[in-house]
């Protein structure tokens, strides 16, 4: 006995070709496989010598078809017809040679019938019998033999794998230990699922191990473990080629039966008609009288004894080859060398007529010379010696990768298959919880997808031999899938309309829908059904800025508005830009906040950065709308214009836009291409919106003038201030930012030109001459910060004006508490929320007579107004207040009251809701 092993594997698979109507040609595939392969394999098992075991995988379509009573009945009719033909043939036989062959067939078919009845017309029972007694180890493959690496979703992969395993369990009463990867197609990740399903081993092509990482130390002489612990047995190509090769393999021997010479093709049509297709299409009868003879057309009559002789010779040759290979690897141990030879089962008997006899002959010849082992037994003995490697995508097809199943001819199929996968998940989610009726529809969708996804169709289309049937079958199942889906979406009350579909292909009767009912979808269904209240307005709010991303006043505004709307009972979903370190979803003070990442978040062109962000925002909005019936969209500023417009048309709900500032106003006109594009987006947003909100009469004028928006479409809603956020307290513990005798003037804002901080520097010179006790602190950062600091330094204002840069909220509030005057000298300010914060903090507030600021403050009542960009005016206001403490207090308390009443978020949010309602009435959905 040689050291080492041989393992022999067969894979029995046919696509599901049972049709409801009789006489479909493709059903003959099953009958021929039964007659020529499956039954002779049972004969081989009956006579198998002691101590030999091999393995066979049955695909679920084969299991289902072999167990199908209709096919069993049709098979008997097929046998009857063949018997009848044999009787006719006996009468017409021309010579002794032919008579011999006919007698051979006569005996053989008698035995075939006998075997068929022995197992009660279900051949699987025969294999099950030999499986139980340990003569053969049966296992299975994917539910419909899908090419697994080309499945898109994990859910569909699991359905293929698990339904295969379940079907095996149904027929064999136990779980399989092995799993045949259809087409030996492996890809990383598939092993994880196999392992989870309790699969111990599978088969790959030898290239898979030869190209592994790290390199498989034993090459193809031993299986390896995949990273998730499934043993991968490599097909030995050289050994397999002896049987498989059409050029120099055994089946091509001149004494073996010729496959292509069936009597169907050279009998009179009237004579043969009862035995071929009723429409007169000549198809194989299974009676083939010739031997291969040679390459010429002329064929000699088959001589069974000669063929049997060749079987013995080829078996001996094969065993010698095995011995030779094992001798070369004799020094290998831990584990000993293993030769793995997997084949399509139908190769034996059907293609190579004598192949099943050869298996038996090889076993006889191996006695005492070569040990056979099953993969399972090999693992049991040697698992501790197996290496673990990373294997990459590979198959046993042409050129070792995917090109047979993915090429110019069949690539179009995958768009449809993947669509089905997602639609099954969609159906399971949107029809949850399922009723018995809807479950049947979804089951039938799964069944149609299963039947469409067989690797056979892509294979046949590539092969071009039966492309018409493959295309027809594929198209039929895809089409029916979508018809069922449409029927399902009409909320059917009964199953009448799909019963015909169910009967047409009664495949996988107890198909499971749970693979497609994802835990996440189930959670959302339950969670959101309790959350949704009909009397709430559901607002989809879009803003590029949202805390913690604060660039200007926009973030605060959107946050405060949303928060107050929620407090008043509305449901607000804000979609905004991703911020590193912040969650993509959170509920913040009742606001649903979604932060989305665009595809190109670091592009240096700001305009296209916003474009990219808009696509991401719109995606998120569209996804949310799958579950949430939004009443309206509320967009803030041009940066979300594209998404807002897209969603408005997609969801068919009104759009409300708040214009916080305009490019025209910011730049005092439009001067370059970028400004032009931004101006366009602002214009478009105003155009697309049903209602435009602005914060001040000033902005209303601007929007009406610049964008030609009708005045009645514009609503003025001031910005609000949240007094709770301005945590000013009485200073009791001594000042941190000033001396007690000093008058502190505080300003805060982004350090950009339009905030007018340079006016403070100019005015400081004038103020210094009159009052040495006045001090300015300006908080905030921005592009002008360095320049202003330089000016302060060079102009000797160091002790008087301080640009503090960024300050924390805590310091900011402290500064507001300690200061005597709040000053906002902006050149352009659409609203000026900071001024309101000064007022709310109870400080005398000085603002420029510009933009929104001028509407917030009433001069000498709630604050003081100064001329923008005018140092004398600023100096006057500061000096006046510094010298008149009484005035300071009067203005401060009036301002505080104003801020708390007029600029009150509760009031503003109510007005905003009213505007939403008004839109809904104008644009009923």
């Amino acid at each position, binding site marked *: 006995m040689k050291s080492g092993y041989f393992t022999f594997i067969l894979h029995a698979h046919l696509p599901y070709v049972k049709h409801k*109507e009789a*006489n479909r040609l*493709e059903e003959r*595939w099953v009958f021929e496989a039964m007659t020529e392969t499956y039954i002779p394999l049972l004969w081989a098992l009956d006579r198998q010598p002691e101590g030999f075991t091999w393995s066979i995988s049955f695909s679920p379509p084969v299991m289902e078809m072999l167990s199908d009573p209709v096919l069993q009945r049709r098979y008997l009719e097929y046998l009857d017809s063949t018997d009848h033909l044999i009787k006719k043939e006996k009468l017409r036989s021309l010579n002794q040679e032919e008579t011999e062959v006919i007698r051979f067939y006569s005996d053989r078919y008698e035995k075939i019938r006998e075997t068929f009845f022995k197992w009660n017309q279900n051949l699987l029972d025969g294999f099950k019998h030999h499986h139980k007694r340990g003569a053969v180890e049966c296992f299975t493959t994917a539910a419909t033999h899908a090419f697994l*690496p080309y499945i898109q*979703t*994990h859910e569909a992969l699991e359905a293929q794998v698990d339904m295969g395993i379940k079907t095996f369990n149904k027929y064999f009463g136990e779980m399989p230990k092995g799993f045949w990867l259809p087409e030996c197609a492996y*890809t*990383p*990740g*598939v092993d994880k*699922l196999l392992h989870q399903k309790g699969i111990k081993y599978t088969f790959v092509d030898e290239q898979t191990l030869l*190209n*592994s*990482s*790290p*390199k498989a130390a034993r090459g193809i002489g031993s299986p390896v473990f995949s*990273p998730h612990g499934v043993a991968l047995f490599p097909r030995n190509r050289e050994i397999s080629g002896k049987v498989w090769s059409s050029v120099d393999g055994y089946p091509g021997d001149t004494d073996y039966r010729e496959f292509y010479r069936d009597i169907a093709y050279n009998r009179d049509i009237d004579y043969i008609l009862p035995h071929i297709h009723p*429409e007169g299409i000549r198809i194989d009868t299974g009676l083939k009288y010739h031997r291969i003879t040679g390459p010429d057309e002329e064929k000699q009559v088959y001589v069974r004894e000669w063929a049997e002789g060749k079987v013995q010779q080829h078996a001996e040759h094969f065993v010698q080859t095995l011995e030779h290979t094992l001798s070369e690897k004799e020094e290998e141990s831990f584990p000993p060398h293993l030769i793995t030879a997997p084949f*399509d089962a*139908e*190769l034996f008997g059907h293609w190579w007529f004598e192949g099943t006899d050869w298996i038996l002959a090889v076993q006889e010849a191996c006695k005492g010379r070569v040990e056979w082992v099953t993969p399972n037994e090999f693992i049991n003995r040697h698992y501790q010696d197996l290496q*673990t490697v*990373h294997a990459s995508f590979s198959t046993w097809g042409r050129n070792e990768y995917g090109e047979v199943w*993915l090429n110019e001819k069949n*690539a179009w199929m*995958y*768009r449809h298959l*993947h669509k089905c996968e*997602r639609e099954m998940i*969609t159906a*399971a989610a949107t029809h949850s919880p399922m009723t018995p009726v809807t479950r049947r529809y979804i089951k039938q969708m799964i069944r149609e997808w299963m039947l469409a996804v067989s690797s056979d169709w892509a294979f*046949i289309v590539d*092969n071009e*031999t*039966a492309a*018409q049937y493959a295309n027809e079958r594929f198209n039929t199942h895809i*089409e029916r899938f979508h018809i069922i889906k*449409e*029927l399902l979406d009409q909320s059917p009350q009964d199953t009448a*309309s799909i019963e*015909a579909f169910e009967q047409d292909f009664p495949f996988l009767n107890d198909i499971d829908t749970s693979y497609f009912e994802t835990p*996440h*979808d189930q959670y*959302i269904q339950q969670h959101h059904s309790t959350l949704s209240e009909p009397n709430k307005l559901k607002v989809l709010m879009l803003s590029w800025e949202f805390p913690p991303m604060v660039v200007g006043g926009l973030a605060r505004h959107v946050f405060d508005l949303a928060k107050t709307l929620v407090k008043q009972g509305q449901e607000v979903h804000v979609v905004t830009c991703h911020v590193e370190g912040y969650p993509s979803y959170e509920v913040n003070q009742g606001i649903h906040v979604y932060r989305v990442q665009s*595809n*190109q978040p*670091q*592009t240096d*062109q700001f305009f296209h950065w916003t*474009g990219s962000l808009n*696509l991401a925002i719109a*995606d998120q909005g569209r996804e*949310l709308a*799958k*579950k949430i019936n939004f009443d309206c969209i509320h967009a803030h500023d041009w940066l979300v214009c594209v*998404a807002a*417009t897209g969603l408005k*048309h997609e969801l068919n709900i009104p759009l409300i836009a708040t214009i916080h500032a305009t490019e025209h106003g910011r730049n005092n006109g439009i001067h370059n291409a970028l400004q032009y594009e931004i101006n*366009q987006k602002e214009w478009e947003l105003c155009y697309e919106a049903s209602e435009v909100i602005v914060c001040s009469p000033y902005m209303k004028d601007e929007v009406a003038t610049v964008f030609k928006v009708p005045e009645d479409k514009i609503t003025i809603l001031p910005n609000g201030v949240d007094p709770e956020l301005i945590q000013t307290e009485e200073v009791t513990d001594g000042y941190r930012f000033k001396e007690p005798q000093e008058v502190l003037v505080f300003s805060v804002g982004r350090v950009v030109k339009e905030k007018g901080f340079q006016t403070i520097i100019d005015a400081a010179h004038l103020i210094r001459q009159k009052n040495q006790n006045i001090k300015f602190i300006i908080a905030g950062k921005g592009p002008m910060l360095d320049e202003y600091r330089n000016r302060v330094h060079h102009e000797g204002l160091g002790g008087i004006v301080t640009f503090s840069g960024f300050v924390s909220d805590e310091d900011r509030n402290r500064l507001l508490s300690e200061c005597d005057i709040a000053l906002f000298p902006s050149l352009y300010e659409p609203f000026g929320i900071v001024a309101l914060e000064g007022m709310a903090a109870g400080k005398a507030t000085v603002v420029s007579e510009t933009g929104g600021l001028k509407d917030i403050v009433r001069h000498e009542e709630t604050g003081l107004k100064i001329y923008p960009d005018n140092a004398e005016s600023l100096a006057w206001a500061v000096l006046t207040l510094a010298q008149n403490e009484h005035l300071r207090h009067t203005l401060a308390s009036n301002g505080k009251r104003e801020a708390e009443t007029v600029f009150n978020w509760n009031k503003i949010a109510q007005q905003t809701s009213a505007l939403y309602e008004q839109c809904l009435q104008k644009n009923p959905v």
Partner: protein
Amino acid sequence: MVTEAGHWRQKTGVKKMINEIVKMKEKGLTLQQIAERMNLSIGKVQYRWNKYRQEAGKAMEPKSKKEGTVYVKPAEPSEIVVEPPKINWVMPYEFDEDTLFAMVQSPTSIFVYWSISAMKRKMVEHHFRTSWSDLPKKMKIYDVTDIIFQGHNSHRSFEIDLPEMTNNWFLQHLEPDRTYVIDIGTKTFDGSFFTVLRSNPVETPRDAANDHRSQNVLNWKNGNAYEPEWMENFSSYSYYQKIR
């Protein structure tokens, strides 16, 4: 499976089926008997028979002693509902959805197919204020091997121009053992690439053994990695995946 050439059935013509039914009906068989003989559902036979009678009109109904039957023109769908309701579903060229899926074909080739929803096309048109047909169509291929790709951090990338009316592509001459991400997009006015859709990452297989994954395999095997440090395929999909 083993398949051979030459065994392809022409679909039984409707006309032939009707002829058969009519013949048997004339012989006095019931629809049930006809259904059994023809191995069809009773519903199907009844449907065809009713349709035939409607078409042929009263003149056809009585005992025509003619051999064979008159050619019956296919009828418009009638209101007799014994078959599933006729829903016209025609396999589309693509679906109105945003999808860009990449599939590996070999160590050097990847197949991608895509479709861009009408909504997204409109938004791109809106952003660029240019009609879709005037926008250049481009594809950008990124090598993102062992990188968490965020749109700008690939090892390398290259772009190709796409012809109009294209929704799939075979990419050739790639490198084995690399991970690629593919974008479909257009070009901004100053020539940079603007992404419209992004694919799943795909890994080209090795075409020779190497040690690239040895440490990763060891880490995983020894429980020193929380997740495998290589690309695993088959991501989960859920319908509400962007809702939390």
